[in-house]
């Protein structure tokens, strides 16, 4: 029998933790912490060329700026860092590999002096030819971004190819695709490309580092998603023991993957650990332009899918080739490449599969984690080509999808059987809500209207043994503190954890608080990424809260001399109806109970819980096969109704409907928030976002003027978000992740809607006005396919395209 009663447990609409201080403006983010006059400020001087050997760096003028304390160069801090592949140094050593790479760190008494000093650092380079085109550089090895690739350490599930620009090569080999194509009635082969895009979180990266000069202990305050991963990466890079590094993460102003792993901390440490600086805290806050130029981006990609389909519309075989533009570093970006690879048949059952997913180094900012982690990329291609294929074989795209859907029990491309899900029901709802199969008159006179559908799927992408642990402390007045090192960066996890603890403890949510992460106080958690926290950390929180509850109940059972089963905790009051007892949780929970035997028992209640997924097996590096490659998948669908202004190429979204099978909505307010926010982020990416470079690799979109993200004026007229709840077997409450999923499919859904409106297939993201305008013009001449190449090396691409087809 359940022994707790609460009004705001799992599944209830409750307001969110920390929103009061966020609304008031009193919540302190990293940049808001104050360190007094001891604080020094750092600013990086950055490379102005994309590829070259450093001949000399002159810091003499920078040192003359009043207030400048020290200028640190790469050869004074040679450490290689990386999550999956150690290919990154915080400061360029000997060579620069992209425009914006830090070449020197100026440390000064004020931020202004550091900024001034950085402008005065002068470098001379011997220029090398830069490379930008992932398709070309995947096979042409005449110029290498990392000739030293062989010497870099990496985890076993990442497969770099030394002597090439391939930082990772993920493969699926199942069945016989060539035979499947021969037996097919139709073979469809198409490609799609997309430039790099930026996270656009509003809080720029910021950190403060300090070394204790006596012991070497490091303290790092940082806007990071994952304190423990940051600590591990730094410890490995420096050769430090873990317990000599303390990482504290204040609230962060949005992450979306862009603050996962390690970002600017090592660069800041180059200042804080300098012999002339150490002992004083050093702060590194990077400007918006630097964020755009030199932090993670979502990788650009060029992807091709060949599909063999039988006469009834069943997909028999699929051959996928994905080139991801990982930029200068793949330390994190190697893994979305893998994530796209092991989900490379999307939401469909395909018996014969051949996939090559490559991470290709180029002289551009580095690719990393971004909401969706390889799946917006994959589904950006898949859902486009599925739509093309349906039209080519003369079948309704909805019917074609349903015919090939990955039903429970069927095997994913890695050979793992699919679990239960409500995808067909979600599709049906979306199709109905948006009227996908109905042609409607445009709302705006003279405009063209179209509807499109795209499906979504994603598993948490992480090491097989990514673990979590939590501590639940019941305090001496019946309030609760949860130590779970998940970062609530806005997604609302702390509210979910509080609701879980409320469910398990029978204590109202308003008495429960989650504490922001600190490696010194919190128990271990792998990372806040992959939409894994409510699931994996949720397991730990649930276990910890249940542990605390059992301790409380057994103490009261002894105290009242009643059977433990007769005790209930109701809204923070411990009750035993049969014995007529009811007492609020009070200081005895902390100080112990004087028991009938005359002795004190108990003491502070501390519940603990740990979790590691028990049964994930890495896909085989040669074939990609595994009986259980991932823990589970969250699936969903997006239907969209758009209108195009033929005069300008402007696209307006009339209506969007997005539904996901979340297993169980722990915190409905946050589930809705994640779906709404991700849908708009996905529409923004689909319609306007792309990072562009000139022929020398200089970023042309370094700010929100040139890199546009959706404003409030760019949102759809109607956003409908819903979810289904098919419970997950191994899960705290049946729940699965949903944070990233809403970002996956709005963009391809728009592409399909535009095809529906114009009869022209745009193969290049984003669907910017100029591109859509071009499509409108093409529709007049009967042309059907619009291709643009996102890179300046158009010529190379044209050649590559010829070789491809």
């Amino acid at each position, binding site marked *: 029998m359940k022994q707790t009663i609460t009004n705001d447990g799992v599944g209830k609409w409750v307001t969110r933790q920390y929103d009061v201080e966020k*609304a*008031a*403006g009193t919540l302190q983010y990293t940049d808001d912490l104050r360190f007094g006059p001891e604080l020094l400020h750092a600013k990086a001087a950055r490379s102005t060329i994309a590829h070259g050997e450093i001949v000399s760096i002159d810091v003499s003028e920078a040192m003359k700026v009043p207030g400048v304390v020290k200028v640190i160069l790469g050869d004074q801090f040679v450490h290689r860092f990386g999550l999956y592949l150690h290919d990154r140094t915080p400061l360029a050593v000997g060579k620069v590999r992209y425009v914006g790479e830090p070449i020197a760190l100026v440390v000064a008494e004020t931020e202004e002096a550091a900024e001034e000093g950085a402008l005065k650092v002068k470098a001379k380079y011997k220029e090398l030819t830069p490379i930008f085109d992932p398709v070309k550089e995947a096979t042409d090895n005449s110029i290498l971004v990392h000739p030293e690739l062989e010497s870099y350490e990496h985890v076993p599930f990442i497969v770099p190819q030394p002597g090439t620009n391939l930082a990772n090569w993920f493969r699926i080999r199942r069945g016989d695709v060539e035979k499947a194509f021969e037996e097919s009635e139709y073979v469809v082969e198409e490609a799609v490309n997309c430039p790099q895009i930026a996270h656009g979180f*509003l809080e720029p990266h910021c950190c403060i580092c300090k070394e204790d000069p006596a012991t070497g202990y490091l303290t790092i305050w940082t806007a990071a998603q994952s304190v423990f991963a940051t600590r591990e990466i730094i410890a490995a890079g420096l050769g430090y023991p873990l317990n000599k590094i303390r990482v504290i993460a204040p609230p962060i102003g949005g992450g979306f993957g862009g603050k996962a792993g390690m970002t600017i901390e090592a660069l800041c440490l180059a200042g804080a650990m300098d012999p002339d600086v150490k002992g004083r805290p050093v702060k590194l*806050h990077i400007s918006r332009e630097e964020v755009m130029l030199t932090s993670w981006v979502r990788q650009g990609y060029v992807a091709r899918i060949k599909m063999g389909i039988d006469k009834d519309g069943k997909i028999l075989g699929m051959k996928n080739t994905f080139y991801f533009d990982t930029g200068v570093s793949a330390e994190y970006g190697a893994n979305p490449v893998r994530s796209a690879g092991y989900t490379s048949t999307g939401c469909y059952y395909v018996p014969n599969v051949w996939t090559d997913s490559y991470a290709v180094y180029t002289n551009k900012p580095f690719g990393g984690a971004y909401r969706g982690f390889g799946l917006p990329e994959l589904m950006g291609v898949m859902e486009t080509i599925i739509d093309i294929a349906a039209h080519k074989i003369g079948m309704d795209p909805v019917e074609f999808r349903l015919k090939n859907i990955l039903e429970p029990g069927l095997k994913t491309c890695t050979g793992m059987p699919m679990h239960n899900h409500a995808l067909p029901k979600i599709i049906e709802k979306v199709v109905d809500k948006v009227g996908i199969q109905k042609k409607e008159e445009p709302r705006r006179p003279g405009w063209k209207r179209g509807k499109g559908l795209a499906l979504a799927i994603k598993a948490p992408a992480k090491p097989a043994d990514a673990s979590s642990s939590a501590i639940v402390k019941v305090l001496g007045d019946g309030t609760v503190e949860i130590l779970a090192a998940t970062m609530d960066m806005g997604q609302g996890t702390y509210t979910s954890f509080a609701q879980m603890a409320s469910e398990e403890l029978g204590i109202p949510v308003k008495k429960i608080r989650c504490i922001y992460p600190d490696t010194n106080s919190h128990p271990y958690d792998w990372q806040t990424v992959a939409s894994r926290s409510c699931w994996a950390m949720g397991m730990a929180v649930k276990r910890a809260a249940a542990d605390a509850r059992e301790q409380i109940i057994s103490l009261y059972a002894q105290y009242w001399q009643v059977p433990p089963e007769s005790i209930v905790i109701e809204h923070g009051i411990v009750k035993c109806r049969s014995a007529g007892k009811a007492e609020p949780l009070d200081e005895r929970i902390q100080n112990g109970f004087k028991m009938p035997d005359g002795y004190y028992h108990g003491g502070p209640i501390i519940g603990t819980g740990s979790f590691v997924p028990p049964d994930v097996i890495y896909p085989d590096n040669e074939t990609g096969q595994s009986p259980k490659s991932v823990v589970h998948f969250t699936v969903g669908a997006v239907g969209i109704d758009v209108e195009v202004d033929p005069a300008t190429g402007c696209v307006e979204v009339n209506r969007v409907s997005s539904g996901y099978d979340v297993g169980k909505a722990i915190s409905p307010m946050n589930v809705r928030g994640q779906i709404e926010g991700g849908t708009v*982020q996905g529409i923004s990416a689909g319609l306007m976002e792309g990072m562009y470079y000139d022929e020398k690799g200089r970023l042309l979109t370094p*700010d929100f003027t040139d890199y546009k993200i959706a404003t409030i004026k760019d949102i759809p007229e109607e956003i409908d978000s819903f979810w289904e709840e098919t419970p997950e077997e191994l899960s705290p409450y049946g729940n699965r992740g949903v944070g990233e999923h809403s970002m996956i499919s709005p963009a391809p859904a728009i592409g399909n809607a535009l095809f529906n409106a114009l009869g022209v297939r745009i193969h290049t993201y984003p669907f910017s006005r100029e591109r859509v305008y071009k499509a409108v013009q093409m529709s007049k001449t009967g042309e059907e396919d619009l291709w643009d190449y996102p890179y300046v090396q158009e010529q190379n691409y044209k050649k590559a395209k010829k070789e491809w087809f």
Partner: protein
Amino acid sequence: MPKQPINVVLNGKPVTLEVEPRTTLLRALREFGVTSVKRGCEEGECGTCTVLLDGKLQKSCMVLAVEAEGRKVVTSEGLLGPDGELHPVQKAFVEEGAIQCGFCTPGMVLAAVDLLNRHPDPTDEQIKEGLSGNLCRCTGYVSIIRAVHKAAAMLKERR
């Protein structure tokens, strides 16, 4: 560079800020300890640094501190009641789930206050116009629009 004192009325209280001629109002406020004004871009694009300057919306990264001499500055903390209770706009943001990471929120709240001063009963279009200078990357704005409507209703009740 030498600093000079400037006098402003900050959230109702006269204060003196020590600033260099090149210091923006944003940096001056933050140095003074008012950290609800956030620096999301320092180039006038994001709105996280929004304040009310003499009752008008202003991106504080786009004015020099010396230009604020003798003027009234209101930040999000300045909207709180005497006992720290949230302003109806702030309250509506909390209740409608219009906050995620919260980095845009102080600026967004001020933009909403300014909008509701001008349009006590705003249409969706007016809300979109009024908040179009403030970016939010998290919420997709839908919940923010809900919150502004709710705040309008709450303020009407209070009047």
